[in-house]
């Protein structure tokens, strides 16, 4: 079984946020409002944070795209009382809306702040993807087409694309990638099987001093970063 992972090359990244927008487009993630932005109740499956260091004129601001880290030891899975979030065999940490009771314990436990609570009913938009799931059996965690308020949601590594791609015998990582990888104009993101030493992600991880976020937490994220 594959172990899907992502590599984000911060040197190639231009901070354009195409990943953020493409993710919203792909997954029908609701948009927010000024109040929600300040309050931080907006939903992002992928966000870009700006981290600054130094003082004028020696300033450095890095823009770090942050999807769900899909940890090998996900704290969210450990604390979820309802088995609503679980780690699939291929390493993707998934949230099942139907099981989620909305206790928010996972939001508390996530060291990366990638989990979002649905604070309101989502507005219906014409551009929402209406796709039914490819398979009746995955109706549970399927994030489309509509969501209810009161449950927690997060990045799925676009598992619907991966699952469909595998069924069609496509190569994951080249032909089929998550929406954020696909939309990245600088091609700063790579997706593939971390267990396969030949895969593009394994190669990328080996090119430079790759790192993961908050390594000390022992979460073993599957999203790796390459430094500038």
């Amino acid at each position, binding site marked *: 079984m594959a172990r899907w992972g992502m590599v984000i090359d911060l040197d190639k990244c231009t901070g354009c946020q195409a990943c953020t927008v493409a993710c919203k487009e792909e997954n029908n993630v609701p*948009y927010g409002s000024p109040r929600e932005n300040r309050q931080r109740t907006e939903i992002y499956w992928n966000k870009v944070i700006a981290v600054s260091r130094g003082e004028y004129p020696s300033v450095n601001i890095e*823009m770090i795209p942050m999807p769900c880290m899909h940890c090998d030891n996900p704290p969210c899975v450990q604390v979820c009382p309802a088995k609503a979030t679980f780690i699939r*065999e291929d390493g993707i940490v*998934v949230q099942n809306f139907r099981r989620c009771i909305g206790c928010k314990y996972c939001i508390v436990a996530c060291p990366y702040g990638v989990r979002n609570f649905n604070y309101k009913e989502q507005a219906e938009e014409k551009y929402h993807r209406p796709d039914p799931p490819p398979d009746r*059996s995955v109706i549970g965690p399927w994030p489309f087409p509509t969501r209810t308020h009161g449950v927690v949601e997060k990045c799925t590594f676009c598992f619907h694309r991966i699952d469909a791609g595998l069924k069609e015998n496509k190569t994951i990582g080249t032909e089929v990638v998550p929406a954020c990888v696909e*939309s990245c104009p600088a091609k700063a993101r790579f997706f593939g099987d971390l267990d396969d030493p030949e895969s593009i992600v394994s190669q990328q991880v080996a090119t430079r001093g790759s790192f993961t976020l908050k390594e000390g937490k022992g979460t073993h994220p599957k999203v790796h970063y390459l430094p*500038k």
Partner: protein
Amino acid sequence: MLPDNNSENSPAQSSEEKQSDGLVISRRTFLNASAFAAATITASYLLKKPEIALASSADEPPYGVVTDKWVATSCLNCPTRCATRVRIVYDKAVHIGGNPLSRVSEGENCPRSHIGLQVLYNPDRIKSPLKRTNPQKGKGIDPGWTALSWEQALNEVSNRLKALRDRNQAHKLLLLYGLNTISNEDLINRFAAAYGTPNAISREGLENEADKAGQWMADGNYTTSAYDLEHTNYILSFGASIIESQKPLARNLRMWGKLRRERPNRAKIVVIDPRYSVTAAKADQWLPINPGTDAALALAIAHVIISEELYDKSFIQNWTTGFAEYRKLVLGSHSPEKIALVTGIKADTIYRIAREFAQTRPAIAWRGRGATCWPNGSYASYAIFCLNALVGSIDVPGGVIYQEYPKYKEMPAITDDSIAREGRTQTSLDLRRKDKFIAAGVVTNQAADSILTDNPYPIDMAIGFHSNFNMSAPNASRWDKAMAKIPYYIHVAPAITEMAEFADIVLPASTFMEDWGYDHCPPGSGFYELKLKQPVVKSVHNIKPTGDIIFDLAKRMGGSVAQSFENIGNNAEGFVKYRTSTIMYWDNLLQKGVWAGTNYKYYKYYQLFNTPSKKFEFYSGNMEAALKEAGKWTGDRTACLPHYEDTKFLGDKTAYPLILTSYHPLLDVDDGNQNYPWAQEIFMVMHGYGWTNFVEINAKTAGSMGIKDGVMVWVESPVSKIKARARVFQGIHPQVVAIAQGQGHTSCGRWAKGIGINPNDITGVDYDYISGQSALFNTRVKIYKA
């Protein structure tokens, strides 16, 4: 130990899942737990939902079956006009992706392309033609719109057009246009010519005119430059926000990735900008420069390159003229030690980047808005462009290259009559060329003053195509007054913007997602690429493509105007088909959406230079000729050399100690509207905030004034003052404050109105008098707590 069972494998669980989601359980819990009033609200809500679900599920095909198609079209959320493919599911556009056939951006798009969905399905769009009932015009005054049929609206407009033309006053028609497809621009200009008005005014005078004039002085091509990013090793960016707003953006983004880590050598990028832009953040070095002194720095760099003999001797010898004079100017008074005092960049640093630039070839000196939108911006542009010639980066791999354009089918000449001929020879409203702005292509911001002063003549009627100068032009309130003064104004756009509020008639044009058009990029790729626009979905509103509106108006006009629009396709679709027929079969084009030209060929020196000497000129013969033509030639040869003059600022330094700068963040959607939540919510990426903009102040400066991060302050210029939230920031020159463009809308719709501030409200009016470029960054301001 982690639980990893999942419902797919456990039938017991999944049967239980179904129960939990049914109505039964939730209702039971409810009735048990609650009192009537609250329960009734909630229960009715609960009862309602499943009904909807049932109804919709009946319409939809069974699981796993999706009827979808991909339509090839292109984007128009910025002038890059990237090719896209739109996924249509159940007749609705749900996804916009890159078109892999496009070579300009190698099939990649920037985030703005995805926002096309919200442009198309913007709930605040105009749904039918509108007519004003309130005769009083002004900012914030309700026009009292009433709906109109297309027949009525077009009749009224064409009658008025006809009447004006019959009075022999065709030049009193003003056409304004913002961001349009190339095909619509062609139609607008053809309409202007056929009607007989010299007044077709685009927004370019707010963007890139000085940039163009700099290149014109050097090599005779009045254009922005294309840079061969793919092969370059060193980029020296003078105020160019390469990955934020410089066009063609998507190509820049793609190439950024390429020149960083997809080649054996990693290009070095140095950004010179008083503001720490996203480009500066992602570059290798940021050099904050005293605002308005880029030309001086360019000359100092030239000083080092020439004095250390690092320049490309063979290119200078064979393909340039005026080098001796240039050399004398540069060596005479532009030593790095001296210029360090002007620019605030240390002499050591100037030496270092000059040597790096000359020795890490191919290298590019990139002039951006930040360096050129100043009085004398043309000279800054010229001075920076000359650096490319010094190191031989002209039409070489990795240097400046010369954009090619698709060869559309030539249109037949317009049918002229005396009215048209006479009208066209009138002085243009923007006083371009010999009147005031020696080399100007268009002087957008001058139009407002001309309207207000009736100079050279009063304007009787105006049509605005997707324009919004009431937001985007400096000292925007002048446009409010000017638009209110125009007796009859027709606005053609998909949404009510600030400018549309002054209209007598609003004609709802289609968005680029429903429009027909052909397009190509601004200079960037070198090779040409044609992009098609075709409607991706049938529009739900009662709208027309801009092209159809123009064709229709021309037809209703009759006479020579109507004749000029015959045999070129008869409508927007036909026009596109007609014009592209030389390039590609129609069906093929509809399917592919893109036609890219052959690979770019370098070293075409014999045909590049459009100057008197047919060479690259360090002393501009074109400029000398233009000055003579305008009768402004004084014999001062410096006026034709790339030189630096102390920048003139608007406002007194003691009263207004700071300098206002503005910039376009990437998510400032370039179409004059900002009613797109996806763009709004991640608007200020460097600051981590959405749905706003602020006045960015250097931390030390703010500290000395006792201004804390997040407090409200007044930003006052000699023009006006606005109240803004202060953002205390390390990444900005101590004497500069920056405000992002794109916010401060007072119209446009629910997601744009009332958010943030518009820097153009307080920017003063000044120009680069060579190119007519509005000076955007030389307004002084003061800041105090609100």
